[in-house]
């Protein structure tokens, strides 16, 4: 029934105003997403005043296109200069940048484009066909599930520590500690703010991510010889389209990444930031002898890129069907939906099917269009990798500063970002995983809020309450499986150190 109804609105896509909004949304999303500090929610918010000039359908198409393209655009800078444009592309910076250092920037972008475009398409089709029934899954998530999901996410730390397990755990727990800075929402007590009004609202993810990755990368590059380049070689391939062999090699990585993205996208507050790390950790667990995770493994990049765009469509499900935004971008789109006089919820599918189904078709078209636009942008942007480090380092620092400032118009955020930059530089120098710290910072509030809500709803009997819930049990089993495989892999690596080194 849903399929036939959805198909009947496909024709609405082919009007000049719809196609114009689609193109504008994709272009703005790609450009803003690629600049560290400027996020897709900011891009969508900037489009709201522009959207008043268009009917609701076109306006919303522009925003969902911007969202999909922004999520993908963040990977460009992550792969090319290790400066992720969005928090959902931080994991891609690990393998992507290592590939760039080997002179394989175009190959990395090829895989990223393929994984993102098809991830977005699959996610879009799930949104189109299964939105109302899947919305009920989001409602099954209670405090215990949120807490356990955060724990499941934290198990990824073990995988992304690359042999420095204790340092990875220190970094991860340090990230969780940093997430506690600010006023405690349950007691109203300011924690570790030292009287600063700015710190009262906590540490924002954006300055942290720009500092830990982009600014730190600028510092890292400044210690190299000025005339050296990131890519090493000075020739760039024109071949932007993925090769069959490449896709064949990463086919299971793509499937795992898409799976993670689709599932975690539906859950409010999870989304691409968590999905990428879980997909990456899963990929490392499934790694075979010869795979070079942490040193430029295409499978790792495919999984992270598949997962972050795989969740774009499904993250819109709770927003359209329940009025619950799955993330910040969805919250801004929800705001635009209301501004344009539409009421989110299942009634939206009954009262305004022409708007909602055309927007979803628009979202699907945006994913295809972004692949083509990105193909043209990719080569130009890849030139960054053959730019002398002496010029690239100050440029990265300038964009980190201006991106952070423009995001909130607050100079204090720039100081926070620079502090994180120094921290990130020192952490990388002494082999502490910056990814683990970021993961802790993202998952910390979810874990703490989940645990404290759980303490309230379970009236102190946490274990009994949790094991009564099937979804919680499933998450516990999944966590144990990952811990078991991590421990086994750790043991195996220790035992076969010589073979691995060979």
């Amino acid at each position, binding site marked *: 029934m849903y399929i036939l109804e959805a198909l009947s609105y496909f024709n609405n896509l082919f009007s000049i105003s719809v196609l114009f909004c689609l193109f504008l949304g994709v272009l703005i999303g790609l450009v803003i997403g690629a600049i560290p500090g400027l996020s897709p929610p900011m891009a969508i918010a900037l489009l709201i005043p522009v959207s008043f000039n268009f009917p609701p359908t076109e306006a919303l198409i522009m925003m969902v296109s911007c969202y999909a393209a922004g999520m993908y655009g963040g990977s460009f800078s992550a792969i090319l200069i290790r400066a992720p444009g969005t928090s959902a592309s931080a994991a891609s910076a690990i393998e992507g940048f290592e590939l760039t250092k080997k002179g394989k920037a175009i190959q990395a972008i090829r895989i990223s484009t393929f994984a993102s475009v098809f991830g977005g398409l699959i996610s879009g089709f799930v949104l189109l066909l299964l939105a109302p029934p899947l919305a009920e899954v989001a409602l099954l998530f209670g405090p215990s599930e949120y807490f356990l999901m955060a724990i499941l996410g934290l198990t990824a730390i073990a995988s992304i520590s690359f042999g420095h397990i204790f340092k990875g755990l220190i970094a991860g727990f340090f990230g969780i500690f940093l997430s506690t800075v600010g006023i405690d929402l349950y007691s109203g007590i300011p*924690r570790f703010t030292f009287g600063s009004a700015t710190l009262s609202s906590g540490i924002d993810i954006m300055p942290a991510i720009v500092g830990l990755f982009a600014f730190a990368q600028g510092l890292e590059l400044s*210690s190299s010889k000025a005339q050296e380049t990131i890519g090493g070689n000075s020739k760039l391939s024109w071949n932007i389209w993925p090769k069959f062999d490449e896709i064949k090699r990463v086919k299971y990585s793509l499937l795992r990444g898409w799976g993670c993205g689709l599932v975690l996208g539906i859950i409010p507050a999870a989304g691409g930031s968590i999905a990428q790390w879980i997909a990456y950790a899963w990929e490392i667990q499934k790694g075979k002898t010869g795979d070079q995770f942490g040193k430029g493994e295409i499978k790792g990049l495919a999984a992270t890129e598949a997962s972050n765009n795989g969740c774009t469509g499904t993250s819109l499900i709770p927003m359209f069907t329940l009025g619950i935004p799955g993330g910040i971008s969805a919250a801004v789109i929800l705001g635009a939906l209301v501004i344009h006089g539409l009421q989110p919820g299942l009634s939206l599918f009954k009262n305004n099917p022409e708007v909602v189904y055309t927007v979803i078709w628009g979202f699907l078209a945006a994913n295809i269009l972004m692949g083509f636009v990105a193909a043209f942008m990719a080569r130009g942007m890849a030139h960054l990798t053959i730019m002398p480090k002496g*010029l690239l380092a*100050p440029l990265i620092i300038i964009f980190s500063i*201006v991106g952070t400032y423009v995001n909130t118009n607050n100079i204090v955020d720039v100081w926070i970002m620079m502090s994180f930059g120094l921290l990130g530089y020192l952490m990388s120098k002494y082999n502490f995983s910056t990814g683990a710290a970021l993961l802790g910072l993202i998952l910390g509030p979810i*874990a703490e809020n989940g645990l404290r809500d759980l303490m309230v709803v379970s009236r102190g009997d946490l274990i009994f309450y949790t094991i009564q819930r099937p979804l919680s049990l499933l998450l516990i089993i999944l966590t144990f499986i990952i811990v078991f495989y991590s421990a086994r892999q750790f043991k195996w690596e220790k035992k076969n150190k010589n073979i691995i080194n060979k």
Partner: protein
Amino acid sequence: MSKILLLRSIVIILVCFFIILISKNYSNHANLLPTFCATVIIIFSILDFVQNKKSFKFIKKNKINIKTLKPYLVILLSIVYVYLIVTLGFFVSTILYFIFTSIFLGVRNYKSIFITLIIIIPLMYGFFVIFLQTSLPKGFLI
């Protein structure tokens, strides 16, 4: 046993004790997570120290020279830059910062510095000021 490794572990542990001490003042379970994190970090720091102390002694000490100090000097330049963008203005400070930092890092091809600036500054102005209409920091210049 390397003194650096020992010093690093001691600094981490001291910071964690400081966190635990401050957390004691927080009531209503607000102290739970910070105390837990600090305790776990102390345990892992000790384990990390024990695991690495054997391998660490073979690592040669890095001599302090201009190359190792470069990133820290770039931070200092960046701090000056952030102060300058609110006094001189964003675009003038950016031009000055880019020129000084590139030369400090060892770029001697002044033509490439000039070309990069010619491309980047108008692009930044077009994107941030005209298109996004954001208010970049303003000083007594531009």
